[in-house]
């Protein structure tokens, strides 16, 4: 059967459609399910049955068949008792352009419903998930809904046999996300062959899929806005043989690179276009500056005139590149019209350029080359907006959208929020921030801050997202109360010890403030979940690391050092350095312990991990001591920043890696929308608090401190 158009094997059931109606479906389907098949005769019937059972709305099943076996007959048979329209688009040998991807494209072209679901015909994609792809709350207004194997509850199951192939699948997905961070990045499973998309989106764009990665193509090329993911479990193949292969993987890699380079030319995204415009402009600046220098320096042309001439040349250069590489083809005007306009824009702006140049050189005393670059930079944005609007009809600058996107990050990203909390804390406690910064690089008698900070960040990486195990119960009043309590605690601590006298009070106050900020910006539940990370900076306090631990660690490093000395046969190494390494080790061990407790709580497992962590960091510290002795020669190891730093720089990532692994293993983030409290008032309040604590607070604290600590008799006397 050779058909250009899919044949309706059977219409939807109903009194009129009973019997063997073989015309176009009488009722409008709400979705088209495109199922590319190749030699899947045995899978068709079960698939249709399960789809029938799962779906509650009228649908059409469009089998795009590249088979050489009895699949077409199976499709026809299955149509006999299906509730929905079953259509067959058979592509005979020789007419199978684009392979699997081409088959899906053919399906897109033939689909009649406003929404399309693409799924495999080999039952690896459970039909029961289909309704969730367009019915669930998240999917309802999304342009693309991806059934993902990798987010939380969905799992790879037993479908992809072999660790190797699973790794290949995962790696190619990661690669795609890395190459297209904005469009593909948020999708955990861009390799999924199971997704829903609006028909309009795929029709309006030019898709050129190679192989089977049609979703990637859709995400990269189609005008896709909101993308959601629905978890599912990849099923074992019912029958037939799998078509995924290593060669396919390599072909995919090639395609990915092709896609990346081809989308770099005439990019569709606003940001990429802007960046492209900027890159071309940068090359234009080079041309411009070179010419200006040649004219003004070698031919002694007056610099303003020279700037005007070189501007004209660089405008031509810019236009050639921008028109060829950056702007979309769609413009209806001719090449020369565009050129004229481009030059006109540049020359309308030229007086401004010359004026800026004059002001910078004559009044402010800049060199004319610097001033020229500066003038170009100032005018760049204006030129970009006008050119793209007037010449290419593009809305270059959508401030509302940009603002929306910025607030969107603020609204949805817990990482952005914790960063903000840390920044606010730094504003509130500039002294601590400064000490932390210097403490990162300079050795002191306490544990270097680098180690707890690295551990804290590793813990935060996976502990910010809420997990399945916890209930989604939140309370803003509680947040405000706890944050208020923490702020009061921080304030009292600061009052008791004005900054410079008691750094430990200050650090505890800082942590309290950080806690308050985290509670307000992330909510109590998230702040409590990440408590380990928020408390870890305290490890840098002298008093926190227990003396016995420090002594034990110093003993370890000392013994390692003497052992090394014996091995090399030299004198004893510098004692101060070895003690410093010991303190770092103690800190690392403590951090490992806290990380283990945070991840596994007080339990036998927690204890086991703690011991393992301590053993690991000790091993690293010993190796570092031995190696630095062997490398630098005994006695050459001196107290000072450099060598101590080696120790910290190796210990910090070790602990951080442990913390990262542990916390990743225990936390299973939920798929539903992560709760983030409304931050509008919280941020204003925290900013005020930060200003009161930081810039404005010092004098008030000093006076209040004297009030608190001076005897009351004097005070009452003074007030009278």
């Amino acid at each position, binding site marked *: 059967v050779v058909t250009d158009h899919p044949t309706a094997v059977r219409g939807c059931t109903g009194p009129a459609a009973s019997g063997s109606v073989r015309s176009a479906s009488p009722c409008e389907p709400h979705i088209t399910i495109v199922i590319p098949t190749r030699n899947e005769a045995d899978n068709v019937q079960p698939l249709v049955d399960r789809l029938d059972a*799962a779906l509650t709305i009228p649908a059409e099943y469009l089998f795009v068949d590249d088979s050489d076996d009895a699949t077409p007959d199976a499709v026809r048979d299955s149509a006999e008792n299906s509730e929905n329209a079953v259509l067959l688009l058979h592509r005979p040998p020789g007419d199978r352009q684009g392979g699997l991807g081409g088959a899906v494209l053919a399906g897109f072209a033939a689909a009649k419903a406003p929404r399309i679901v693409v799924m495999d015909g080999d039952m690896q994609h*459970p039909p*029961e*998930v289909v*309704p*969730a792809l367009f019915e*669930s709350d998240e999917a309802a207004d999304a342009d693309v809904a991806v059934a993902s194997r990798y987010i939380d*509850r969905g799992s790879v199951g037993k479908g992809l046999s072999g660790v190797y192939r699973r790794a290949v699948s995962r790696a190619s997905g990661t690669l795609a996300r890395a190459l297209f961070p904005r469009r593909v990045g948020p999708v955990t499973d861009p390799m999924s062959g199971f997704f829903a998309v609006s028909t309009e989106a795929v029709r309006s764009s030019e898709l050129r899929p190679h192989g089977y990665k049609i979703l990637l193509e859709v995400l990269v090329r189609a005008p896709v806005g909101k993308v959601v993911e*629905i*978890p*599912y*479990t990849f099923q074992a193949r019912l029958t037939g043989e799998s078509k995924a292969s290593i060669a396919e993987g390599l072909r995919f890699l090639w395609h990915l690179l092709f896609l990346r380079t081809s989308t770099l030319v005439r990019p569709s995204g606003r940001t990429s276009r802007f960046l492209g415009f900027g890159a071309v402009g940068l090359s234009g600046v080079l041309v411009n500056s070179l010419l200006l220098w040649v004219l003004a320096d070698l031919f002694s042309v007056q610099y303003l005139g020279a700037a005007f001439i070189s501007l004209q040349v660089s405008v031509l250069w810019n236009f050639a590149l921008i028109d060829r590489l950056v702007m979309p083809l769609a413009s209806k005007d001719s090449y020369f019209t565009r050129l004229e306009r481009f030059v006109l824009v540049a020359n309308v702006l030229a007086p401004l350029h010359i004026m800026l140049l004059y002001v910078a050189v004559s009044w402010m005393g800049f060199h004319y080359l610097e001033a020229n670059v500066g003038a170009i930079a100032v005018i760049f944005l204006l030129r970009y907006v006008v050119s793209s609007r007037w010449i290419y009809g593009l809305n270059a600058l959508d401030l509302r959208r940009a603002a929306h996107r910025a607030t969107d990050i603020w609204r949805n990203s817990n990482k952005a929020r914790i960063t903000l909390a840390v920044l606010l804390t730094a504003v509130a406690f500039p002294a601590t921030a400064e000490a932390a910064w210097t403490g990162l690089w300079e050795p002191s008698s306490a544990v270097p801050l680098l180690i707890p900070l690295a551990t804290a960040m590793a813990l935060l990486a996976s502990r910010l997202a809420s997990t*399945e*195990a*916890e*209930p989604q*119960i*939140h*309370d803003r*009043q*509680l947040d405000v*109360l*706890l944050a208020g*309590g923490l702020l*009061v*605690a921080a304030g*009292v*601590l600061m009052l*008791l*010890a004005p900054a410079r006298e008691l750094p430990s*009070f200050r650090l505890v106050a800082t942590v309290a403030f950080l806690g308050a900020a985290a509670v307000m910006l992330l909510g*109590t*539940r998230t702040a*409590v979940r990440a408590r380990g990370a928020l408390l870890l900076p305290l490890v840098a306090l002298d008093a926190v690391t227990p003396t016995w631990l420090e002594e034990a660690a110093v003993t370890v490093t000392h013994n390692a050092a003497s052992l090394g000395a014996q091995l090399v046969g030299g004198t004893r190494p510098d004692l101060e350095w070895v003690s410093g390494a010991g303190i770092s080790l103690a800190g690392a061990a403590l951090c490992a312990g806290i990380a283990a407790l945070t991840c596994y709580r007080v339990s036998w497992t927690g204890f086991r991990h703690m011991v393992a962590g301590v053993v690991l960091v000790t091993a690293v510290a010993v190796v570092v001591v031995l190696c630095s002795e062997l490398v630098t020669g005994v006695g050459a190891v001196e107290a000072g920043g450099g060598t101590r730093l080696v120790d910290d720089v190796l210990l910090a990532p070790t602990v951080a890696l442990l913390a990262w692994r542990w916390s990743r293993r225990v936390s299973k983030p939920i*798929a539903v929308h992560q709760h983030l409290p409304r931050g509008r008032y919280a941020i204003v309040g925290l900013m005020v608090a930060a200003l009161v604590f930081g810039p404005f607070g010092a004098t008030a604290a000093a006076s209040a401190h004297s009030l*608190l*600590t*001076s*005897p*009351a008799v004097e005070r*009452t006397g003074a007030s009278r």
Partner: protein
Amino acid sequence: VTSEPSEVERTVRIDYNLERSINGLRQSRPDYSAHITVTWRQRYGLIALLLVVVAPLAVWPLVTAQVLLGIVMFVYTVAVAFRVWLVFASGRGEHRVRVSDEEARAVPDDELPIYTVLVPAYREPSVIGHLMEHLAALDYPKHLLDIQLLLEADDRETIAAAERVLPGPHVRITVVPPSNPRTKPKACNYGLSFARGEFVTIYDAEDRPEPLQLRRAAVAMRRLGPSYACVQAELAYFNTSQNRITRWFSLEYATWFCSLLPGLVALNMPVPLGGTSNHIRTSMLRALGAWDPFNVTEDADLGIRLARDGQRVGMLDSVTLEEANSDFINWVKQRSRWYKGYLLTWLVHIRAPRTVVRQLGWRGFLSLNLFVGGTPLITLINPLLWGLTIVWLLAQPPLIQELFVAPVYYLGLACMVFGNATIVYLNLLAARDGDRPDLVAAALTSPPYWAMMSVAAAKATFQLIFQPAYWEKTTHGLDLAPAPSPVEADNAR
């Protein structure tokens, strides 16, 4: 053709039962209703009190602060002493009504009264199935049972879930029409208007009442006679060992129901009833105006009202197992509601102090202030004193030294050392009496739990001022495994 009902239609459709369950008490006994948090007289009283405190604070700050601290310390001492007194009283004699299994079963069916069981629930479709199992386990003749599930009209999910599992005519769904205030007592009042039973009791949807409880209550009520309006069964938790919070919570309940409430009964003081498993004579309840829909601890309030009306409350020796709140935030929400309700109840019942003293006697009045009003207030003040202690330990600022004049200082020290030790000891006693060795560790580590209470008390105070009638919803079913997502459920089908 309009689908909206016309003005006339709407007026005609007024549900008088609903109207009564919202405004019944407010109209019949406005002085008992919490629809106004503080009366005008109380407001002026409070302002006067503030003036009396603030004015001297401005003129003689130190002396005033010293005096205030002295008062607080005195109240602390009295509160601790009162607790000890209660525990002592509860241990002195037998104040629980015991009905043996044989006695309970021996009553022939035709001598048993009709029993109304009200089960209010809101947005809890997941626990309805379990609820039916636990109701089915009740050993009581079906034809004498009148079980009403009180569900809110907008809660279609729970209504649908309940409709699927209805076991028979003895269980019916009463849909409460949408109306404010959205509180459990309003739903209960609405259910009460359709109640057929001679006795009425309330269970929460996640409760597991002891199967013989209804029979025991019926026998107990008959034995106690008409001077007793109500018997309160003991509440305990089935998920004690879930985590630290549930252990602390169980211990607290053990203390509450095994020492403190029996102590109140023994000393003939008003008993703030527990939220569920209180078995009340329906006629008495109706005569009293039923529950106060504007009070968020309508149970405690009812206990005080019973006492003011001269009715007595007995403790029934039968246990209903509830779900202990296992989540910190959920716990704080629930506890803040309780504290808010206690404060509300206290404010309502000290509106007319002289009348209350006449009705309850000085003992009852003392317990009303210390037990109902004092519990949340003391918890609220706690962090201030802990803070002072910590600041003193950290930096010894002279200001604090001056605040505590010698007698107050020693009193405070005694409160901190002996008071806290006493409370821990009483908790230990409760664990021992209840034969719960698993709770001993929880008793010894209770201070963090007190800190949680203080957070809840602060939240309660905030809400008392800004949202007095708001019902802070507690989520149930947290002891169950997480519910499967729709997709998974589909996959499983």
